């Protein structure tokens, strides 16, 4: 067994774990969540633990601080921190380190802060406990810490309750808490997953800066390969509780030696990639961890599997210092880098490719004109209602939120329009407005030439056939009380498309379209995996042979390997059926991968719109530029440091004067941004940017992804 990565950086490792195993007793036997994991972190180094859901990566993090419940059984061959053996007696020693020499930052800042205690007090607690500070000393130190993590008004924030802070602020406060006692090791469990991409970038910058300043060692747990690459020196790839590959991040990402690592990288959509490229998803699903296979745990999903994989795979050191659990590692590492293979271009690449996209109604399948939606908060008696969202609670005039503010958009037949923006920008509302799930407050929407804005329920029915929707959450988008067959069949019956045996046959056909076997018709949603559920959602949407489907974050809840398969499926369906999509996502990579045209939304309005290639290259709207800069992309690590960063966070709410992006804009010109509605400039036909900056200035911005796409 080779020395784990990190030791070659010299000196004794800060943390050295060998053969870590965590088991849960279940009704069906022991579930081995972590199986013989070994890793080490040298002082000042950052180790990333990456894996998909169910890989056991968070369990590893929790084990370090002994935060697993009593029902978890933990054992290890070696477990030392700063040379101190933590195994005997296990719990007491590790508990003593908590918050003091090892600190932890949790995934969801919203739930990791106690809602009943002021933020400052929560940060002060470990200071008082471990540093023996008085209340006053601690309070002063809290302010320093808050300032250090980049919080502008530390005193106010210290006195605030968690709900009064934005997600990014909360995560900064949690980092400040972790930093308080000057720990040697900081464990971060998906610290940016719950945050928007621009905030994520801020937090990652902050971590980078703090790490250098405090000589911190970091254990960083994430599912996001891009984030891991940005933050970590070393990486540890976890699959089904086992470390399948570990080594220096640069090596692992450049030339993955384990088929799983390779599969992960191949599944990643990249903002820089071309439309029509194909992802390489990993087939199959995670094995049952209560009865793990005798041989290689990845064998049944592995494209390189062959006879020799029936043996148990032990970690094996490669010549470059990596450790891999695969006997074919060298051969795999030597293979071509896992970029996307270009799909054979279908005969007709879709109408979107032809002709310049325009705003003319001619041929537009979906025509959205100056549509707006104002939500009233509270009910009919809102004046007598308490409004939990804050502010002065007694409202005689119900508070309003302008979620969508005069958006115009065209989707042409067979075209994929990507709608991107951060949470709260109104993109989902817009999707629902188009399908009339929400009544628009103003503006006009036409589907296939039918004005649906004021249409009655009856008049809407034929249009409903044309336009369907696929939702984000596979767990909630299927009625758990109906079989898959019933779910897919229902629209057929509702629109009188097919009945009886005919419908039965049609269901099988639809399931086939989304690559599900006919026997799935008998199953219930809870028997399906997330990816399968999402396929069923798509099949249901396809049942009425729609011309247009709204995909509302349809892949966001899926693991990257599953997402890749769904994205491929969507691309195929578009090509085969000529369906148009409105692809709503916060993930620029997904949008870039699939969309013909992209609309970037900010605070209820589209700030930039145009063909994908043009939106992803200068001239950018400053917000688009910031978004692109923020996205962590594997293989573009160096880009990060020099890129624009947004201040603060998106604030939703009332009417806007001037440019809606003015308060966060890194390229703000002056007062004009606050007072005047920005003009729309059109650097190329069909590419529109709403900004006060002169077009020349916008053109002068260097491309975020460099001159050429990284893998192209």
């Amino acid at each position, binding site marked *: 067994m080779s020395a784990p990565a990190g030791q070659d950086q010299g000196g004794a490792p800060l943390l050295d774990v060998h053969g870590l195993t965590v088991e849960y007793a279940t009704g069906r036997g022991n579930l081995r969540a972590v199986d013989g994991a070994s890793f080490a972190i040298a002082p000042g180094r950052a180790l990333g633990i990456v894996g998909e859901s169910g890989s056991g990566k968070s369990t590893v993090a929790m084990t370090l601080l002994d935060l697993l419940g009593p029902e978890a059984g933990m054992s290890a061959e070696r477990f030392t921190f700063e040379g101190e053996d933590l195994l005997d007696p296990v719990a007491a020693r590790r508990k003593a380190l908590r918050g003091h020499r090892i600190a932890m930052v949790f995934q969801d800042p919203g739930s990791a802060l106690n809602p009943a205690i002021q933020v400052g007090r929560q940060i002060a607690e470990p200071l008082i406990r471990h540093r023996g500070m008085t209340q006053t000393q601690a309070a002063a130190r809290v302010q320093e810490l808050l300032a250090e993590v980049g919080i502008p008004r530390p005193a106010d924030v210290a006195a605030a309750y968690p709900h009064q802070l934005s997600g990014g602020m909360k995560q900064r406060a949690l980092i400040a808490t972790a930093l308080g006692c000057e720990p040697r090791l900081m464990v971060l469990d998906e610290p940016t997953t719950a945050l928007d991409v621009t905030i994520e970038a801020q937090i990652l910058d902050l971590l980078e800066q703090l790490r250098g300043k405090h000589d911190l060692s970091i254990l960083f747990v994430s599912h996001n390969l891009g984030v891991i690459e940005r933050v970590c020196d070393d990486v540890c790839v976890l699959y089904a509780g086992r470390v399948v590959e570990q080594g220096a991040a640069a090596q692992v990402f450049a030339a993955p030696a384990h088929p799983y690592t390779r599969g992960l990288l191949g599944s990643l959509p990249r903002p820089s990639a071309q439309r029509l490229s194909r992802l390489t998803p990993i087939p199959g699903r995670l094995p049952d961890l209560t009865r793990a296979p005798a041989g290689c745990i990845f064998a049944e999903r592995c494209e390189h599997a062959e006879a020799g994989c029936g043996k148990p795979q032990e970690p094996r050191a490669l010549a470059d210092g990596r450790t891999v659990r695969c006997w074919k590692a060298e051969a795999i590492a030597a293979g071509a880098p896992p970029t996307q293979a270009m799909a054979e271009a279908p005969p007709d690449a879709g109408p979107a490719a032809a002709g310049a996209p325009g705003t003319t109604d001619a041929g537009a399948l979906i025509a959205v004109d100056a549509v707006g939606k104002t939500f009233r908060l509270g009910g009919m008696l809102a004046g007598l209602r308490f409004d939990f969202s804050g502010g002065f609670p007694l409202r005689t005039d119900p508070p309003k939120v302008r979620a969508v503010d005069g958006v115009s958009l065209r989707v042409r037949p067979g075209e994929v329009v990507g709608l991107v923006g951060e949470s709260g920008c109104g993109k989902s509302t817009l999707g629902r407005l188009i399908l009339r*799930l929400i009544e628009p407050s103003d503006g006009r929407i036409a589907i296939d030439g039918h004005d649906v804005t004021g249409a009655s329920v009856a008049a809407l029915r034929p249009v409903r056939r044309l336009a369907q929707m696929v939702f984000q959450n596979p767990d909630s988008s299927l009625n*758990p009380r109906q079989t898959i067959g019933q779910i897919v069949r*229902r629209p057929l019956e509702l629109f009188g498309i097919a009945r009886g045996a005919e419908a039965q046959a049609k269901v099988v056909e639809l399931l086939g379209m989304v690559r599900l076997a006919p026997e799935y018709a008998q199953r219930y949603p809870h028997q399906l995996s997330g990816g399968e559920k999402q396929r069923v959602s798509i099949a249901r949407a396809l049942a009425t042979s729609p011309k247009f489907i709204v995909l509302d974050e349809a892949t966001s809840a899926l693991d990257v390997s599953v997402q890749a398969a769904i994205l491929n499926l969507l691309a195929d369906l578009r090509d085969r059926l000529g369906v148009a999509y409105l692809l709503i996502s916060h993930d620029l990579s997904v949008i870039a991968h699939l969309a013909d045209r992209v609309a970037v939304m900010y605070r209820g309005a589209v700030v930039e719109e145009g063909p994908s290639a043009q939106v992803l290259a200068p001239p950018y709207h400053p917000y688009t530029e910031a978004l692109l800069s923020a996205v962590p992309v594997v293989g573009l690590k160096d880009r990060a440091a020099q890129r624009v960063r947004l201040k603060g966070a998106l604030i939703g709410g009332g009417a806007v004067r001037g440019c809606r992006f003015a308060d966060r804009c890194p390229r703000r010109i002056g007062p004009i941004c606050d007072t005047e509605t920005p003009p729309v400039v059109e650097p190329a036909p069909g590419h529109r940017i709403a900004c006060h900056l002169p077009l020349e200035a916008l053109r002068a911005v260097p491309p975020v992804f460099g001159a050429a796409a990284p893998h192209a």
Partner: protein
Amino acid sequence: MSGAPASPPTSPAANGTANGAANGALRRRRLPRQLVIGGTIVGAIVLLAILAPWIAPYSYDAFDIPNRLKGPSAANWLGTDEFGRDVLSRVMVGAGLSLSMGFGATAISLAFGVPLGLMAAYFRGLAEEAIMRTIDVLISVPPIMLGLLVLAVSDPSLWKTMLAVGIIYVPIMTRLSRSVALGLMEEEFIQAARARGAGARWILFHELLPNAWPPIIVESSLRVTFAILLASALSFLGLGPQPPSSDWGLMIAEARQFLDDAPWIAMGPGIALCVLLIGINLVGDGLREVLDPRLKKRGAA
């Protein structure tokens, strides 16, 4: 709740994999212990109540003056009351009354409360305001007061007590089914149904209702307990079934006359009532464990 491993905090997609599916199947096979014990108790009492006319050793209202106020014996296992009536037979027949009041009242509250709650959640707006404000008023009267008031207007009987108790719990059912339905309305499969243009009736009864049942059933089992308690308290106060009925609340009320000489008259129905309520509570907890999605999630690996 405990026992099963706490899932490592991961994305929601983690569930619903092979483990999740297998767990679901497993769960259906092994019922919680409370459910088994409680079900046995309630089942036995229901069976006794149904069979009482045939298996009760005596008629519930037959006098036997010479043998009055006799303690438990081979002839009268639970003794006899002031008229020489057999307490065991009365308790057995009375079980039917308590059960029918508890379940009847709950059924009434379900029959009114659930549709109201679902409608409030589905239609929102004015309908919701009208329903919920009415409910606010009803719920601000302490249950027993509402019962006393309803029964003050008319002469008491089994049916009226059942109705009164049922009405008392309508607001709770309405609130519960509304909040459940509101949660479900956010669920994407409802949105999907609306997106394909499904009608209100379909959505209410095919999409909403089947999914709203679990929490409603759990709450109902709790309501049955409270309904039996309240109904028997009302009949204890004389506002329930009338003599010579052997309703347990009434029996206990009548037995108070003879507590010193013949405590068994009160003990029979009193202990029966406690056992029944414990049984229903156990069933309720068992159902909660099986049906409550929150507990389920916690239990699923």
